Each structure stands twice: as C-alpha cells, then as structure tokens.
C-alpha cells in the first residue's frame, strides 16, 4: 500500500492557523493500514489540534470524517452536502487523495496532513518498508522477486556496488543491500547464472522521468 507519515504537529498548526472551522478528512485504505491517516489518526489529530487551540487560542471547530478512499470521486462526493460549512479541508489521505479532493472542491483550500513516502508492505504491526517505485517496467522475474530499483539505494541493474557490507547498504546499516538479497535469492532458487547477464540501460520513459502518467482502458469507459 501507499505509506506515509503524519506531518509534525507544528507544521499542521501553522498551515491551519487562520481557520476556525475545518473539515478533517481521513481515508480508510492505505493510510489506515500504515496508521497515518485513518479514522483513529483523525481522532488523535483532532484532539491534539483542539488541545492546542483551546490552550493558546483562537478556538477551532473540527469536524472529523473518514471516507472509504479519497482517490475515487464517488466517495469524495459524499462530503458535498456539508463541505460548504467549513473554511478549509485538512486531508489525511496520501498525496493522490489530497489532490483529488482539491480538484473536486476547487473553491476550498485543501491542506495535506500527511507526507506521502513510498509503496510498501507491512513487515509487522508498526513497521512498513519500501518495495516499489512504480518504474513502469517490472524486472522482478530476473532478480528472484526482489526489486533492484526500489531496494537498491542506487537503483543499480548490475549491482552490487562496492559499498555493500555484511549484507547492508552503505547508506544506512539498518537497510539491507538489495543486491545481497537478490544474490541470496537467486542462489537459493539455483538461478545464480542469471546474475552473469549484463543488463542493458533502463528505459526510464515509463517511470516518473517520462512525465506524469496516465492509464486508459477503453473497454471499460462508459
């Protein structure tokens, strides 16, 4: 899922300082799974903001509401009946959700409460780790199911570099060396010969480098 981190309280307070009545919008999907912006986090943030504004003034009225998703207009539409009553929307969704809410309510300031970071997985409750960078050309078959773009700090296709040490990355000794993982996996699958192939330069057009991306399925369009 998409993983994010709630912004520091100070930053959020600064962004909403001129508002006295806001709608705090959570999301029930990815940000709920990584405990950054779901219903529970909405409750905690609303209480924190209220405590500060009660203490230091001016008071604030916060409506808490959590949508199933903020990346589909059918759900965003659900707030249409009452959105007018609020001066601004503080959204705890990922960057995609925040933007989509803003697109649908162009007259309302929409403020992000979460820093969206990566596409990842749940290692255990409370720990999430990056796995994919959406490069648009998946090479996982070649590397035993471990992504060299996302899990190697330098996105090397012919890794490892000279900085790999005891299975850890030079960038952070807590981070696994992606290429050590790949080599171990290929060895375990008896496929280490794949390692000898010199992988050609990557076509980054399908990644962010090619420009904002879009996908269309004509057969599904109404």
């Amino acid at each position, binding site marked *: 899922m998409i993983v994010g981190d709630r912004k520091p309280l100070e930053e959020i307070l600064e962004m909403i300082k001129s508002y006295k009545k806001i709608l705090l919008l959570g999301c029930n999907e990815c940000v709920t799974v990584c405990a950054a912006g779901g219903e*529970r986090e909405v409750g*905690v943030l609303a*209480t924190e903001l209220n405590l*500060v504004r009660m*203490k230091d003034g001016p008071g604030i009225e916060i409506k808490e509401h959590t949508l199933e998703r903020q990346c589909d207009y059918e759900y965003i539409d659900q707030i249409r009946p009452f959105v007018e009553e609020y001066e601004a929307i503080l959204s705890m969704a990922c960057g995609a959700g925040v933007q989509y809410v803003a697109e649908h309510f162009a007259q309302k300031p929409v403020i992000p409460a979460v820093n969206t970071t990566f596409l990842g997985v749940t290692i255990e409750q409370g720990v999430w780790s990056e796995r994919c960078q959406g490069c648009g050309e998946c090479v996982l078959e070649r590397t035993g199911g471990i992504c060299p773009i996302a899990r190697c700090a330098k996105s090397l296709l012919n890794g490892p570099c000279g900085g790999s040490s005891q299975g850890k990355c030079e960038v952070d000794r807590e981070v696994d060396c992606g290429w050590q993982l790949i080599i171990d996996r290929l060895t375990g699958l008896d496929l280490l010969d794949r390692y000898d192939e010199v992988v050609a330069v990557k076509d980054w057009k399908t990644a962010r480098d090619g420009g904002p991306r879009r996908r269309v399925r004509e057969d599904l369009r109404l």
Partner: protein
Amino acid sequence: MRLNYPANLKVVKVPCTGRVDVLLMLKAFESGVDGVCLAGCLEGECHYLKGNLRARKRVEYVKKLLDEVGLGAERIAMYNMSAAQGQRFAEMARDITEKIRALGPTPVKAGARAREQGPRPGENEKEKGGE
C-alpha cells in the same frame, strides 16, 4: 483495606489497561482533567497476557503527544501493581496528586468543547484501573 487516598481522583474501572487506547487518554485531557494515570497489573502478570505492556507503550506515545501540544509529558503516568497491593494504590494516588499539583491546573481552558459536553464539577484527575 480502608486506606485513604486523595478525593480528587476519579476512578474509571476497565477490565485491563490494554483496553485504554491513545484517543481515550487524549480525550480525557480534552475534557479538562489536569492529569491521567493508569494502574495496571505487574509486568509479566497481565491476566490477558500483554495488555499492560501495550498500555505502557501507548502511555509513552501519549507522553510525546502531550509534550507536542504543550501540556507536558508529566501529566500522564502508568503504575504497575497487583490486586492485593492496596498500599501501592494509595501510594500511587498520593504520588500523582503531588506531581500534578506541582504542575498546576491544565492550561486547556474547558472552553466551548467542554461546555458542549456538560460541566464536570470538582474533578481534577482521572484514573483507570487494571485487572
């Protein structure tokens, strides 16, 4: 045991401190209390195995949040004791009362929010029991 403890302590009983989550602790402060303490079973003796350990982690987290909002981490604390330790309970009550008295009343004015929920006369502290 008929030991005395300060009258400004409001006791809320729960089956296990593990039931007390972050939002509940924060909402207590929002309602205007000056301090919160949790009394849970001795570590390793939780009736539900790990509830008191989860509670401790959450209390540590709420301490950070209280510092963030400017109320102060000292306003919440967790104590561990067994059902038989009446002395310890009284000790905890005196301890937390002293600590909160020294910090002074909560800077959060009850304000519009508390008025919505109705007045809570004379209440300074809330306490949640274990077992």
